[in-house]
């Protein structure tokens, strides 16, 4: 349980920060696809008898390499990759001949069955991600909002775009072990989308995104502890509720 909170905290902070840039850059679909390609990766790892984590990292890194290039940023190519990833996932689960009874854990996570090793891996990825974003945050903000002007000012826009998608892939892989391939997306998109509804000031918006992600993660874990329903349900429901409140607040203040 302590492990779940520790890992959940690292995942919430990293996802909220990366997701904030993802939403700003309108790369939500890319993020979703990166989460999806983790599923066949994990299923293939189970089939091959290697650690599930290796499957998530391998598949998400490959996905990020494929999607990071500027030319491949169109949604049709991204969607096609997502479709084949799902298909492969189903194939690998089928090949496992039912021994892989817990498909739902690949898709929806194993929040409470997490080990010390998993926590260490997640924490390491979080530290690296946050350090890189702290170093390049301002340039990434400029490149995301105003690519042409940033390029003219000397920002290496293509390198940042590619690096960002790679970082997103790594983070998604680490997070997927906890949340599964589907729920990682909830933490990436909902808190930042909510925060950006509330304020147009970048730093407070980023801080609010982190606070919301922590709130829904801790809240979800606490609610699920005494419940027969899964963590993922609570996390997504809380995140969705926050989003609805933010939309209503904005509508009331418009």
């Amino acid at each position, binding site marked *: 349980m302590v492990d779940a909170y520790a890992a959940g905290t690292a995942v919430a902070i990293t996802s909220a920060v990366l997701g904030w840039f993802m939403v700003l850059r309108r790369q939500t679909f890319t993020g979703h696809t990166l989460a999806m390609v983790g599923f066949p990766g994990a299923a293939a790892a189970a089939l091959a008898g290697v650690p599930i984590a290796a499957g998530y990292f391998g598949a998400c890194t490959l996905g990020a390499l494929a999607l990071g290039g500027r030319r491949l940023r169109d949604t049709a190519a991204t969607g096609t990759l997502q479709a084949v990833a799902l298909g492969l996932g189903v194939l690998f689960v089928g090949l496992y001949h039912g021994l892989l009874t817990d498909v739902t854990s690949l898709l929806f996570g194993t929040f409470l069955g997490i080990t010390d090793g998993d926590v260490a891996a997640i924490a390491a990825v979080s530290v690296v991600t946050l350090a890189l974003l702290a170093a390049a945050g*301002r340039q990434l903000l*400029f490149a995301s*909002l105003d690519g042409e002007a940033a390029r*003219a*000012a000397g*920002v290496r826009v293509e390198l940042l775009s590619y690096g960002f998608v790679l970082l997103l892939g790594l983070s998604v892989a680490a997070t997927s072990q906890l949340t599964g391939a589907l729920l990682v997306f909830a933490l990436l998109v909902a808190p930042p989308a909510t925060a950006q509804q509330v304020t*147009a000031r970048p730093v407070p918006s980023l801080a609010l995104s982190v606070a919301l992600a922590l709130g829904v993660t801790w809240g979800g874990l606490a609610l699920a502890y005494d419940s027969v329903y899964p963590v993922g349900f609570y996390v997504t429901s809380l995140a969705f509720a926050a989003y609805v409140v933010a939309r209503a607040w904005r509508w009331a203040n418009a």
Partner: protein
Amino acid sequence: MSTLELHDAAVRLGDRTIWADVDLAVEPGTFVAVLGPNGSGKSTLLKVALGLLPLATGSVRAPAKREIGYLPQRHHGEATAPVRGVDLVRLGLDGARWGVPLPRRNDPRRARVEDVIRLVGADHYAHRPFGSLSGGEQQRLLIAQALVRRPRLLLLDEPLDSLDLPNQHAVAALVQRICREQNVAVLLVAHDVNPISDYLDQVVYVAGGAAVAGKPEDVITDETLTRLYGTPIEVLRTRDGHLVVVGQPDTGAHAH
């Protein structure tokens, strides 16, 4: 000394010559419009000035990159940024620096940002979400972003494109005032000269692989424009001295 000079300049992309034999000198404090049909290489001229595109032949002398303010051409959809106008202006000042843009007390850069926002008259709405502003308001803030580093040369790529006529006049007047007050040389790309001709010191027409530069009354003539566009064009002079170009193919893709 001229702020920007081109001599016998030519640009080639692949084996296509965009334009050649271009001579141009832009003095400090002059407002120059770059005009011509779509695809004739107007933006190319700005990219050469910025050092983003090399010349095939000839020479260019331009200020260093940090002394150039650049407003790229906007595409629809970029105007909904979920940040404030003041944040975008600020990025023009330090967006290429490392680190995180944490707010600090007594920040001298913040004072500069507020100054330039007042200069373009955007102080009433600079703290509102950028996406909620009108096209004219957004364009003023983006001009402030390009101006914030006190450039010697200001390059504006189609800043009037999505504006209604009164706003085209207002932004052109603003650019003229900045040009005079700050003694900055301005190159403004436009596809229609009529709304802005009163504010200009010089025009550059880029068409058919060549460019003609000079004072508006010298260049905007029936003969010159008809020759450049390869289609009959008539220039009228109104009673109060305004030049009006008629028959200018300013909407279709007339690359010659």
